[in-house]
């Protein structure tokens, strides 16, 4: 009897439209946030915060962005890496050109710049659909990476074309980029950005915009006939998606690795993030996080598993086995639940509601 809607009657549409209509869910989320804000920074080692939590959150944000475009608006894109690169290099140019500029604004501005680029590369989506569009977006991927690699202006004419993050503070002396930044500060900053942006995304997808996207996704012809403008709607999806990816890319470059070259956002990155949303669940905010967890945490775990289990193995053996198991698990999860981990959770919920009665 843990999980019940019974007795929770909605007295207003407002209550029914709330983000988490079921109180248990609400509590679960609050608990998760509390843990993320209080427990993890308290107990997490630097290794944990910087090389597991931060990349996980950044990936989750990028996945979130792609999910808006692919999961909700139904436009498959493989340009994510390229858009992340735009965000990273835009932030770099902004923050080196105007050092007094607060990093938060720099990030948001970079996001907006990325959004514009996204719109630009979104135009073909009016004519091209499905996998053709997916592969077509690769054009933007390759072009953008080439661009940032080729023109020294983007990396301030440094010999090697690598951009590295100058120290920047959110407020006062609280640095979130650069060497002397406290891991906790970095983590909490990323966490806050991601949480806020996730809320925004939630607001978008459950309102008018989200419905328009899903309408286009499910049946673009019918959508047009109830008054949805296809191009506008798709381009809005590209813009917002790119906005998220841009910020993700910027945080990747500035807070996670703190030095990147364009090739850090290579095609593999785009694929990785596409995997995340498919594994996690297309058209699900939660799914973006679950997918990111799967793709980021699982390999790290598999890498360390043998050592933890206490027997030494040559690294190449470990890494090959890891790749194999990872692949096998992807297939296993797809067979278990093709609609992604989020759906898995939903099913679990339904079962819980019925529990202890089977039907």
């Amino acid at each position, binding site marked *: 009897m843990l999980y019940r809607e019974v007795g929770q009657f909605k007295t207003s549409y407002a209550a029914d439209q709330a983000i988490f209509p079921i109180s248990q869910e609400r509590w679960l989320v609050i608990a998760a946030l509390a843990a993320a804000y209080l427990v993890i920074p308290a107990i997490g080692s630097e290794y944990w915060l910087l090389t597991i939590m931060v990349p996980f959150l950044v990936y989750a944000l990028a996945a979130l962005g792609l999910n808006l475009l692919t999961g909700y608006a139904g436009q498959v894109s493989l340009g994510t890496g390229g858009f992340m690169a735009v965000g990273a290099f835009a932030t770099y140019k902004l923050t080196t050109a105007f050092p007094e500029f607060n990093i938060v604004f720099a990030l948001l501005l970079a996001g907006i710049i990325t959004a514009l680029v996204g719109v630009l590369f979104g135009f073909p989506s009016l*004519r091209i659909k499905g996998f*053709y569009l997916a592969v077509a977006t690769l*054009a933007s991927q*390759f072009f953008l990476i080439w661009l940032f690699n080729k023109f020294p202006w983007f990396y301030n004419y440094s010999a090697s074309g690598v951009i590295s993050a100058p120290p920047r503070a959110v407020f006062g002396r609280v640095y979130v980029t650069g060497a002397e930044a406290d891991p906790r500060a970095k983590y909490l900053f990323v966490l806050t950005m991601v949480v806020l942006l996730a809320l925004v995304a939630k607001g978008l997808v459950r309102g008018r915009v989200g419905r328009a996207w899903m309408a286009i996704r499910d049946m673009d012809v019918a959508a047009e006939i109830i008054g949805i403008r296809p191009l506008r709607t798709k381009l809005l999806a590209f813009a917002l998606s790119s906005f998220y990816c841009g910020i993700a890319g910027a945080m990747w470059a500035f807070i996670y690795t703190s030095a990147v070259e364009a090739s850090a956002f290579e095609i593999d990155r785009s694929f990785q993030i596409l995997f995340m949303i498919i594994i996690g669940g297309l058209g699900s905010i939660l799914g973006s996080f679950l997918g990111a967890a799967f793709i980021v945490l699982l390999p790290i775990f598999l890498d360390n598993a043998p050592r933890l289990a206490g027997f030494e193995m040559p690294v190449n053996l470990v890494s090959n*086995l890891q790749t*194999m198991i990872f692949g096998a698990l*992807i297939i296993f999860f*797809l067979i278990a639940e093709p609609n992604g981990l989020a759906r898995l959770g939903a099913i679990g919920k339904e079962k819980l509601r019925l529990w202890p009665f089977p039907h």
Partner: protein
Amino acid sequence: MDVLTAVLVTPFANMWSNPEFVLEVIIGGLLSGVMYSLVALGFVLIYKASGVFNFAQGTMVLFAALTFVGLIEHGLPIWGAFVIAIVVMVLLAVAIERLVLRPLVNQEQIILFMATIGLAFFLEGFGQLVWGGDVHPLDIGIPKAPLIIGGVLVNEFDLVAAAVAGSLVAILAVFFQHTAVGRALRAVADDHQAAQSVGIPLRSIWVIVWSVAGVVGLVAGIMWGSRLGVQFSISLVALKALPVLILGGFTSVPGAIVGGLIIGVGEKLAEVFWGPAFGGAIEDWFAYALALVFLLFRPHGLFGERIIERV
């Protein structure tokens, strides 16, 4: 201003001043294109018959090549290694059908696509686990000497590759057009349900298709392998095949060939004559851009079937 001249004037001036070189570049492009087509073929076969975009094709090429070269290093004669490698690829196809496709039958494209990604990871790890990460030189006695034909340089190896690709396509064409299996394959490609309803066993069809794709992958692997040496990077040739696919259409074998040739010539001309204006190394994104332009006019590729939307 000078950017404009560099883009709009200089390239054509260079072309005009040296037509022989242009011809050379075009031929070089055609021959590279053939190598792309070899890889693209595998994608097309599987997509045609099972509607699956097989992300693992590149890894299958690598896996096949590794198996082949590995067997040769264990002292088998080339033909022996070839036969066994084919057997291995067939077994692989059976396993894939049983373990991946069958449980996921009637799922959406994107899910099957994702499954093939899992497959790619698995094969990547497995191949390196069995054969190691070293580079394996592969020489099956294809001559590599440069030939100068009327002042135009052609590489013997590329000619052989072209011949191989050509005959491969010819064989496939015959296979599709004039055999019972081929007819069944085309039926399945047209409409799964209908095909099943007339009693075509979908599963065995899939096994056959994946086997054929595996063999095509093996051939591609051998050609690329004897060019680059068999090593992990071979799996990356898949990226060269994608623009060919969208340009030619996912569902068309001739499309894969023509697409390959167009991409090959296009990217080489761009690299050689326009590259300098942009600081070079533009051929990768140019190939995709080129494909994109074609798509804007033919949203389903040059030879792809177009889907009519009805309300």
